[in-house]
């Protein structure tokens, strides 16, 4: 028994490290949990990207669920998720709202002209102050907000085809089913 003790200790360590590796591949270690999940989205009143004189508030968007996609022209991973979002937008089942984050409007417009514009509505937060209320700390981030203005799902980082199929679409389906 005493002879086996070091081996048992070794196997315990192997198990512990194995769990650590598994755990870190299961989720994004850089994603921090949002305390806003299943809570009302914060109030906002932001200008439209293409018509800055017009403002869009949270109240304006109530009544219809939407996916708020935080993006910026300087964000490399946004270019990764953009084709995925663009392809899925027509069949998403919810409105796609673009949230241009800490971006000079001219850069954002150039970027959209180059990559295409799948957004039904585009709002701009150049100073990035409203984004703090959403707990945004980078781009891309996406929030699924229901007709009552409650945040139902949040994804930090690019929406890959896998995230789209395994997380976002089921979350939208569950939300729409509940609304019926």
């Amino acid at each position, binding site marked *: 028994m005493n002879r086996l003790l070091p081996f048992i200790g070794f196997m315990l360590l192997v198990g512990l490290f194995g769990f650590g590796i598994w755990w870190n591949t299961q989720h994004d270690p*850089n994603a*921090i*949990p949002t*305390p806003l999940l299943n809570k009302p989205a914060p109030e906002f009143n932001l200008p439209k990207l293409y018509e800055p004189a017009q403002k869009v508030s949270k109240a304006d968007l109530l009544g219809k669920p939407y996916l708020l996609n935080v993006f910026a022209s300087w964000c490399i991973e946004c270019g990764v998720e953009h084709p995925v979002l663009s392809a899925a937008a027509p069949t998403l089942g919810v409105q796609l709202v673009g949230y241009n984050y800490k971006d000079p409007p001219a850069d954002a417009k150039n970027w959209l002209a180059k990559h295409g514009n799948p957004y039904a509505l585009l709002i701009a937060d150049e100073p990035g102050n409203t984004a*703090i209320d959403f707990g945004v700390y980078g781009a891309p981030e996406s929030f699924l907000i229901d007709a009552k203005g409650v945040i139902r799902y949040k994804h930090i980082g690019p929406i890959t085809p896998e995230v789209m199929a395994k997380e976002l679409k089921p979350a939208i389906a569950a939300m729409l089913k509940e609304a019926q």
Partner: protein
Amino acid sequence: MRRLLRVFLVASLLLGGFACAQAIEPMPFKDHAQELRFQHLTHQLRCPMCQNETLADSNAPIARDLRNQIFRMMQEGRSDDEIRQYLVARYSEFVLYDPPLTVGTSLLWFGPLLILLGGAGVVLVMIRQRSRAARTMDETPTDSGDDW
């Protein structure tokens, strides 16, 4: 030539200094005490973006925004606790370098103590086993002569 080099060196040092000074934009603090309070608070908060840096040290855009927000809130007369709660409500307890004692963090707080107690238990068991072994050795007379 050597003089030119010296001028170049001094100039680059000066320019480097300016570049550093610009990375951390000066804030119009009311007084020195407020500046110290700001420094103290931002050193206790974790940047959500580059997770192993404090808000004070980080150069990430979000850290700059949050520093500005903390500064604004200080000017409004909010307390350190209010500012901390404001950040926790948006970025979760992740931003606190000193996590509060809750059910979720109890393992974090008492885990090391548990490991220490476990280790002490193992040591105790081993000492007992050895002393028992030594006692049985004492009881059986040994005549080998070489007790080193």
